[in-house]
């Protein structure tokens, strides 16, 4: 599913070179639930961005779903992303649209036939447990509900890979537990999940395969 071979990423900030990832190699199989951890600035976000081809590696090779991401053309990048759901710390919902419209937006953008849209949106909303709030606007949601809506948007296309970058960073403990449960449900449906977090308490609670980055280097891969 995912294979990184000696991947490095260096950002150039003016004349300064900032190494974000150094010589990282790893392999993730289909259906796995992997926790990506490390202190703030360790390179977690950078690694995820390479996976959905938001950026390309400076060195080494990144393979996702059988594609070498660096060599993809624009249309192929779009095709790859259609198989990947991404959620962030902030929900990134469109403020002028309801929860329903936010999720439906994705399907409409991708040209899904009209009569399929409503049932698929409600499927996704039920999976994350927010179908009762379908007509609410983002401003009316709690942060936990907003993150659920964001997850619904990520999975409505039934992606084979879900990338979650600090998805519980804004949430209190109770909400965090709920969101983690939703992500576990999604994983149970056959979706590969990579969850990035710097919270060691969450890492311990999850008890999954854990990849630890430190200053851009792969420190540990265990569990």
């Amino acid at each position, binding site marked *: 599913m995912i294979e990184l071979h000696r991947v490095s990423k260096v950002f150039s900030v003016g004349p300064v070179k900032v190494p974000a990832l150094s010589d990282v190699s790893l392999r993730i199989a289909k259906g796995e639930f992997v926790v990506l951890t490390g202190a703030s600035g360790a390179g977690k976000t950078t690694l995820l961005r390479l996976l959905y081809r938001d950026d390309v590696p400076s060195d080494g090779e990144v393979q996702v779903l059988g594609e070498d991401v660096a060599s993809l053309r624009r249309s192929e*990048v779009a095709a790859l992303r259609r*198989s990947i759901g991404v959620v962030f710390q902030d929900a990134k919902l469109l403020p002028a649209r309801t929860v329903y419209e936010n999720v439906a937006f994705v399907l409409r953008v991708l040209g899904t036939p009209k009569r399929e849209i409503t049932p698929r949106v409600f499927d996704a909303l039920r999976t994350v447990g927010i179908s009762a709030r379908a007509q609410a606007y983002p401003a009316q949601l709690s942060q936990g509900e907003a993150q659920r809506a964001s997850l619904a948007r990520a999975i409505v296309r039934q992606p084979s890979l879900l990338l979650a970058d600090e998805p519980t960073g804004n949430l209190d403990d109770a909400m965090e537990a709920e969101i983690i449960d939703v992500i576990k449900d999604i994983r149970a449906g056959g979706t590969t999940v990579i969850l990035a977090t710097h919270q060691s308490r969450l890492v311990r609670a999850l008890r999954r395969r854990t990849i630890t980055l430190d200053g851009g280097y792969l420190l540990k891969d265990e569990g």
Partner: protein
Amino acid sequence: MLGFLIGEALRDLRRAGRVAVSAIVLITLSLAALGGFWLLSANLARAVANWRERVRIIVYLKREPAASEAPALVERVQGVPGVASVVYLSKADALKSLKEILGKDASVVAQLPANPLPASLEVTPAAAAATPDGARTLLRNLQALPEAEEVAGSADWVERLSQWQRLVTTIGLGIGAVLAVAAILTVTTSTTLILHARRHEMEIMRLVGAPEAAIRLPLLLQGMLQGLLGALLALGALVVAHELVAPRLEPLVNLTLGLSHLQFLPLASLMMLLAAGTLLGALGGWLARGRREP
């Protein structure tokens, strides 16, 4: 999908609000100016064509040729370059048409001891001879005929009218072009605003792998909508202006130009104005480019 794209374009237009409105107004102004001058120019062109057809040059003959010589003379003049057709008028013909013109006063003619009118040739110039140079050459050639006593008539003022028509066209194009540039820039500004308002949508679209067309098309569409709306308003303004002004202007136009009425623009021209508006809008929308992916 198209319904969705148009819906997004309309949502964008609402978001651009007042700037979109000023873009539409500028497109309306530029196309109304263009259309107004076009209308004037088309009518002037019609007047020019009318008058060109009516231009006659009369060659007065030194003496009346014998009836048997006349056809040969006509044929010879017909051969002069720049001549479209020639009609021979004998002294008797001239007198007859004079009587017709005088009508009930024709009896004075009967009192003349002899027919004082010369025989003449009525020459219709070919289109090629309707330019100032062509007309001058034709006049010179006709004057050179040994039979010619005097040559009367010129196409000079038709030429002046035609120059006016060209001037009106140029002014129209000039004003239209200046306004069109302003319109394009305003559409670009409103689209840039929309790009800014739309950046979250575009980020999500890119994130979920929307085709590039679905990301860019609403921008282009809203630009085209601005242009089309502006063009429709301009057409409306032209129709109203024509309805109001034409009846008042027609007596004057009839007197000076010999046009019985001011014609509105033909359908093809109206279509071109609509297309021009849409194109202006599309260009403005296309010129506003946001950050693109690496």
